[in-house]
């Protein structure tokens, strides 16, 4: 009887573990640290175009990751994208006239939000909004602009 009980226990453990693993794989509920649980404050920024920015992308300043993108949403009233991101509470002296831009890490890398310090004496705090933003560079737009410009130059000559 004791033997059967330990067999059943081991089997039960195995099956539960297996199904937990399957569940993890299918739902992709990953335990990535979202700067959650830590002391953070959230800030928003509006962009014309966010390119490929996804939630959980890093927010970096001078190349150091200081926060994470919480959510990316489209604002139907102002017709632009609202990016909400959390910044680590340790960095609470970021000037509120800093500008945010969407950058790409390397040629094939993922996109992240870069902050460039401004010169104001007041600092970003919970729920403040960044005024100066620069959209993601969309390669197609860049190419079409280049083609259009070079075409225009020939016309003017």
């Amino acid at each position, binding site marked *: 009887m004791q033997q059967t009980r330990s067999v059943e226990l081991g089997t039960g453990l195995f099956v539960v573990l*297996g199904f937990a693993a399957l569940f993890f794989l299918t739902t992709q509920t990953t335990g*990535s640290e979202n700067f959650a649980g830590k002391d953070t404050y959230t800030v928003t920024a509006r962009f014309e175009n966010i390119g490929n920015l996804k939630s959980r992308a890093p927010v970096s300043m001078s190349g150091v*990751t200081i926060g994470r993108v919480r959510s990316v949403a489209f604002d139907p009233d102002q017709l632009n994208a609202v990016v909400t991101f959390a910044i680590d509470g340790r960095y609470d002296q970021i000037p509120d006239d800093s500008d945010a831009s969407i950058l790409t890490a390397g040629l*094939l890398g993922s996109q992240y939000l870069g902050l460039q310090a401004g010169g104001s004496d007041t600092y970003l705090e919970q729920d403040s909004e960044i005024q100066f933003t620069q959209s993601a560079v969309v390669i197609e737009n860049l190419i079409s602009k280049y083609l259009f410009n070079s075409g225009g130059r020939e016309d003017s000559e």
Partner: protein
Amino acid sequence: MLRELYFIARGFLRTSGALFLFFLHLLQYSPTVLFRRFPLVVHQIHNAGALSLVIIMICGFFVGGVLGLQGVSNLARFNAEDSVGTLTAFSLLKELGPVITALLFAGRAGTALSSEIGLMKATDQLAAMEMMATNPVRRVLVPRFLGGVISMPLLTAVFNVVGLFGAHMVAVGLLQVDAGAFWQQLQANVAASDVYEGIIKSVVFGIVASLFAVWEGYNAVPTAEGVGRATTRAVVRTAIAVLILDFMITAVAI
């Protein structure tokens, strides 16, 4: 020469036919065993699955870890270390997870099945069962087959998760890849269909590995040498069949 070829071809056809009939025979008894004699199956899930868990987890961890190492060091040339999560996830979920689990399963559980059944045959236990009007296929073979088939997908899932964890530890912990980018890239690129492809593979491999293990054990020459040979054959055939089927399933899926 031609005559020999003819005999080889005929022998191959005969073995394939016998194997297929044996498979149908197992399937025929599977529902009754599954619903009426479930404790027998539970015991085999314990043997084939629960006892393989440690080796699967250790191997999964290090396979994931090496994928993380190779991924980071090679992707660093293109400044694309962030994609290491995607790389490991695709490699593990679609290919390495099911295949390596199947090979380990054949080595750990398949050999145990073949030698156990072979030894039962060598010591006339199967014949004794028949004398007592107990069907040895139903009492001995089918529970072992079902135990293997049920265990394999679960083992593969555990292998994949532990592998991802290992890759995460190496890439994020040792090589300073960004944890958020790792998971964000992984989740952005892995689709549900990729996960299902891996699960389908693991089910097919589970059937193949268990079938060969049971079949070779049941057809072993009832001597010490015969049982040893049967065990070897079960592993070799499983390995070949798994790798060929892996290619075929991938070709169909893409």
